[in-house]
């Protein structure tokens, strides 16, 4: 019997309810599943260790802690090594971008001007996951607008 492919599992680390809702509606419309969300770093780190999502959307500025704390914990504890980590922030400067990439982020987007690209990326990754089924992701062969160099 053929195994039914799981939809893309997404976790959102974001303290802005309005942006979280925007991301959630996009995730649902794309046929993906929001497996959890948090507005602070500690809860996010605890959740991510257990949930192992395919995609993690991370804001830098949080209610407590930061997106860097989340990325650092993921890297140091090797949590969700195959998850795609996307940073979406109002603090889009080269220093934050470089730090994000050094902590394992796959993409870094400016919230003010590139949120639409993140929404499109969610759709592309959800479609890719449906096509790929339950096969593990090949990090060197993917669709979507990755911007890591």
């Amino acid at each position, binding site marked *: 019997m053929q195994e039914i492919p799981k939809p893309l599992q997404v976790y959102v680390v974001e303290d802005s309810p*309005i*942006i979280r*809702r*925007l991301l959630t*509606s996009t995730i649902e419309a794309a046929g993906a599943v929001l497996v959890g969300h948090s507005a602070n770093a500690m809860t996010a780190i605890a959740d991510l260790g257990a949930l192992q999502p395919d995609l993690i959307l991370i804001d830098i500025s949080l209610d407590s802690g930061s997106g860097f704390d989340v990325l650092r914990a993921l890297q140091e504890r090797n949590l969700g090594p195959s998850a795609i980590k996307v940073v979406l922030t*109002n603090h889009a400067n080269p220093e934050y971008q470089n730090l994000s990439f050094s902590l394992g982020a796959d993409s870094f987007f400016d*919230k*003010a001007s590139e*949120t639409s690209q993140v*929404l499109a990326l969610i759709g592309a990754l959800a479609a890719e996951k449906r096509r790929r089924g339950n096969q593990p992701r090949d990090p060197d062969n993917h669709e979507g607008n990755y911007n890591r160099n």
Partner: protein
Amino acid sequence: MDPTIGRELYRVMDALVALKVQLSCDPHIPGETLVLSAEKSRDACEALETASASIKHLAAVLNGGEVGDASRH
């Protein structure tokens, strides 16, 4: 800078980002077509309300008045 000001400014920015996304339309859709659903309209209105509340909060802080608790969304 007062951290409250920075926080409120980011709230305004987030609301404007949400509003921008809600109002974005596919350029290939004919101009006369109505594309904004009631749900998206409500989300857009909420973004405007959030931005307005934050600006009001900011104005109060900058004027040295009572900060109060601006409407939170």
